[in-house]
């Protein structure tokens, strides 16, 4: 799980252009939206693309996003349970 969390941090930094952050600075339990990393709605769309591209997970229900994008740890748990590859 810790490796997946680290991979996710790297992928999120890259995909969302969070150049002010390093992997070490991102807390896996902090909220992704609102506070924490302060992501916005475009970032949410980018995360949906990332899930499909890197893990073969298609998120068809936007409401699901609210649940699984709570934090990187929650996202990693969801990927572990649903990944296609």
């Amino acid at each position, binding site marked *: 799980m810790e490796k997946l969390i680290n991979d996710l941090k790297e992928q999120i930094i890259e*995909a*969302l252009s*969070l*150049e*002010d952050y390093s992997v070490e600075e991102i807390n896996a339990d902090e909220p992704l939206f609102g506070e924490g990393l*302060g992501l916005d709605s*475009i970032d949410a*769309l980018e995360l949906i*693309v990332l899930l*499909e591209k890197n893990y073969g997970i298609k998120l068809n229900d936007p409401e699901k996003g609210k649940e699984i994008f709570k934090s990187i740890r929650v996202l990693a748990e969801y990927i572990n349970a649903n990944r296609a590859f």
Partner: protein
Amino acid sequence: MKQESKIISYTYIDAERNIVVINGEKVFETENLDIKDFLTKVYKTLCDSYPKFYKMDIHCKLGYLLSELLLESSGNRQKGIEDRAIAVVNSSSSLCSDIKHQASIEDNGNYFPSPANFVYTLSNIVTGEIAIRNKYYGETISYIHSSYDSKYLKEIFDLSMVDECNNSILLSWIESIDTTAEGIMFLISKEEGKEGVNVSEKELDNIWQKLKNNK
């Protein structure tokens, strides 16, 4: 007596030549950085923190930096100005982001368009970025034109000032494509008592020619 509108201040960035000029004075220079790295260096060295900068495409980064340095240097940093317009002219529109977007959708087997890139596939986004950053509520507009053209810029200025809601404008030429990212931004005001040079086609041309010839 009719009050002449004044060029209060201007900034110029040529990312290919790695230089930043404010009001004719070279204020920053590096060597051998590519366009993206140079713009990031300018941001980190001369600007306040604004993490959204990293999400912008090259065109918006250039426009954003021009506006930040212009407003800081001219002491015109106050936010929420309701009578300031923003007009940007360029030649290549949003082609840099368009090409990236095209690359992400041309292979049906690897079809992953990036929303973060897609939002920059319009040339007027840069005006919105500047307006949002500064809470400007005036007119914003973007024009496509073949090259820097002082006559055209002056006409845009005159047209903008026909609207009595506008008392000042950020007027800019911003061109970015491949290895080129060059822009100039003027702060021009028609408010009384402002110091500066009278705005004219000739003056807009003189400033540009000096910048281009100052190797």
